[in-house]
């Protein structure tokens, strides 16, 4: 069920940003990729950030993950200013935030078996000294969460799986790690439409069962509408429209949002090709 607006205010703050800016280059090459954006993500919400290529979605997500520095502005994590100055603190922060990326084929170490991918997650969460049987039970549970059979996956290498299966295994990883926030950067753009439905349903399941906050980054406004509670529309480094999914997609106010919606093929309405 989508989160209602009143319900939203009651939820704990998970991640918030004020005036977050990223500038690449200096002088003539100065490029403001993300320009003073404010956001407020609450616990247990699915937030979509929608925009076309080059709008700054990925730069923002990298700043949220702490992979690149923030030029200006503050990011608050769980109500306190985020501190990731030292490597140890960064590692601590990453226990709370994890990511799934666009390309499942390049997300794996191809020399390692699938078991080791999942085993690493258990070890990272302090399960190193658990008995083997218990570790296997955890891996089986994680695989069944994403509708994969653990018994069929043991001793296999990542390249033996299809794109959809690999992406599902990525979600199994997240299930084992149980971070507070999951950042999904176009997780469905490289897999076919049929597996896409499965992945989206799994994201919803993660939210419902573990109360995870999910930041979903996409260029397809249809997908954003299906999964999210809140939608942030991003154009050239700025948020042009923010609101609940129903508000933004059914009654768009910004011209840019209207354009994004018109760019997606629909089945009950005529698709107007003359607008590009």
């Amino acid at each position, binding site marked *: 069920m989508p989160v209602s607006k009143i319900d939203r205010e009651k939820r704990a703050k998970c991640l918030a940003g004020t005036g977050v800016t990223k500038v690449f280059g200096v002088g003539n090459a100065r490029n403001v990729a993300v320009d003073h954006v404010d956001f407020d993500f609450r616990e247990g919400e699915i937030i979509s950030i929608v925009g076309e290529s080059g709008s700054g979605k990925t730069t923002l997500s990298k700043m949220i993950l702490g992979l690149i520095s923030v030029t200006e502005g503050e990011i608050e994590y769980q109500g306190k200013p985020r501190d990731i100055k030292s490597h140890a603190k960064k590692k601590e922060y990453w226990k709370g935030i994890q990511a799934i990326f666009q390309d499942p084929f390049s997300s794996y170490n191809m020399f390692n078996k699938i078991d080791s991918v999942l085993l690493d997650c258990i070890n990272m969460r302090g399960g190193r000294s658990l008995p083997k049987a218990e570790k296997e039970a955890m891996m089986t549970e994680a695989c069944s969460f994403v509708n994969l059979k653990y018994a069929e996956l043991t001793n296999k290498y990542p390249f033996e799986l299809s794109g959809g299966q690999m992406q599902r295994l990525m979600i199994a990883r997240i299930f084992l790690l149980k971070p507070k926030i999951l950042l999904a950067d176009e997780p469905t753009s490289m897999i076919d439409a*049929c597996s896409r439905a499965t992945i989206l349903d799994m994201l919803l399941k993660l939210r419902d069962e573990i109360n995870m906050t999910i930041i979903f980054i996409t260029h397809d406004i249809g997908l954003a*509408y*299906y999964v999210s509670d809140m939608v942030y529309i991003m154009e050239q480094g700025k948020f042009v429209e923010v609101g609940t999914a129903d508000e933004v997609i059914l009654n768009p106010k910004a011209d840019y949002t209207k354009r*994004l919606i018109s760019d997606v*093929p*629909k*089945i009950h309405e005529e698709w107007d*090709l003359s607008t590009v």
Partner: protein
Amino acid sequence: MGKIMLDVKDLKTKYVTRFHESVYAVDGVSLQIEEGKSLGIAGESGCGKSTLALSLMGYYFAPLHYMSGSITVDGMNISDMTPDQVRKNVLGNEIAYIPQAAMNALNPTQKIIRFIEDVLHAHDTKLNKKEIYDLARERFEILGLPASVLDRHAVELSGGMKQRTVIAISTILSPKVLIADEPSSALDVTSQKMVIKMMRELMEKGFIRSMIFITHELPLLYNVTDDIMVMYAGQIVEKGSAKEMVFDSLHPYTNGLMGSIIVPESGTRDVKLTAIPGTPPNLKRPPAGCRFAERCRYATAECKGMAIEMKDAGAGRTYRCRMSEAELREVYARE
């Protein structure tokens, strides 16, 4: 009925792996496309859509091998030609093909105009550089691409622009059939729309006379093509007009695919998406009975045992299922 541009009868092709195993990726496909019509091919990854596209060109090289069947392009049988003959006489001027990652095929050290010169020279066109340039500029302008692109290198263009440039180059000889294999999958929605618009223009202005469009995005096919054909495990499972296929699908597989459509329209959020469980069968050893039986909710023991033939449902509509049209409709209505 218009003139038939592409006529394929019972085409069978296979891949031979380096361990000498055969993978039957296209198994008995028959299709016809009339002049001015477009056909969409849908299906999951690994169902043989891209292999069918490669096979339709008649240009076979290892590991893809031709087994049987015929391909006729505007009255000319191309299935018994040697690869060299096909390259010389068919590719480019009869059939043009745009592969999935077409935009990565542009050599970064050459200007765009050089690729067009290459295409024209390969087909013995007696034009000098100036004439080629004029021809290219005219074609680019009609298709809404700036003529300045011709003097640029591929790295200077954006993804969507590169893709449109590749399409313009591959159709420069006005082929009879254009086979586009996921031309817009790697692009964002705005560039995708531009690519689609350009392909429509190619059809309307008569630069191509028929089109095969392969994608797994069903809302896109619905908006672009006249007919849709759904492939599963190397075979056609259903074929019909775009509207019938989306709103009134017969085969359980097509019905399952339609359950994964996501569009930004009110009501989308209330409908739970239905994904088809499981994965397509291994085509090294295709199942003896109905190939979809393993994943079909309505399968019985009978389905797994007998091979299913295509059935005709009238008005160009065909499907491959044990159940009759009425039975299928009844099953769907019950849910």
